[in-house]
């Protein structure tokens, strides 16, 4: 029961973040919403693992918490430099 409460509240927060990502007047609002959405997905996967009693699939949440950062860095870098290639010393 408590896992259902956690999952439902996480899903509500995901909906709110999605609304901000759609409205977002600036680029940074959207990226902030994406970051929040990624964190909520990690939590949702943890809650689903406990809900369905298959806790050996927590690797997936671990992977997402690492991959989210890579996506964020790529989006930030692109909004900052508009290209990948230049040399950074």
């Amino acid at each position, binding site marked *: 029961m408590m896992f*259902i409460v956690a*999952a*439902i509240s996480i*899903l509500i927060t*995901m*909906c709110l973040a*999605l609304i901000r*990502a*759609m409205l*977002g007047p600036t*680029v940074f609002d*959207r*990226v902030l919403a*994406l970051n929040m*959405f*990624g964190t909520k*997905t990690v939590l*949702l*996967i943890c809650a*689903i*693992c406990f*809900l*369905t009693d*298959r806790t050996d*699939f927590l*690797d*997936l949440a671990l*992977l*997402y918490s690492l*991959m*989210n950062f*890579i*996506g964020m860095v*790529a*989006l930030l870098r*692109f*909004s900052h430099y*508009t*290209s*990948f290639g230049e040399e950074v010393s």
Partner: protein
Amino acid sequence: MIYIDIIILTLLAVTAVTVARIRDLWAAVMFTGIYSFIGASWMLLLDAPDVAFTEAAVGAGISTVLMLGTLALTNKAEKPSTSVPVVPFLVVLGTGAALVYGTLDMPHFGDPEAPVHQHPNPSFVERSQPDMHGLPNVVTAVLASYRGYDTLGETAVIFTAGIGVLIILRRDKRTAPDEHSSDEVVT
């Protein structure tokens, strides 16, 4: 439990429509990232953790980077279309109606008598334990051992894709000075 399914599917549909509607391509790339997040949660709810794992590994990190790399080579905004697409809309509507009609004949979700669960022989799951000396992951056993030829073919497809990208996009150091000199001659 059913409410979680409904909310996740609604979020998937909303995100997909947003990706199709949005004009700023940079934001569209971002929304495909969100789509991958929801898709992986949905795969996990469907008890397909290996597919969810692939989605997680590819969707959030690599595909965002590669799509942004493609965007760096092209424009940032989609060209707005002026005509109202009536005929394509009718075609899509007809196809969608036919597909919905087709789902009426499908077996119920999780039905053990469904063809999906009967056609690749269910004995694979039982055979896998003694065959594999106790390797518990049946998906890996089917992919790498029972269907080894398929996986070899898939690896060859990835290999071919890599070769294709190399041929199209690589700038070799030996040919690069020639290009620049020919450019100078033209300009």
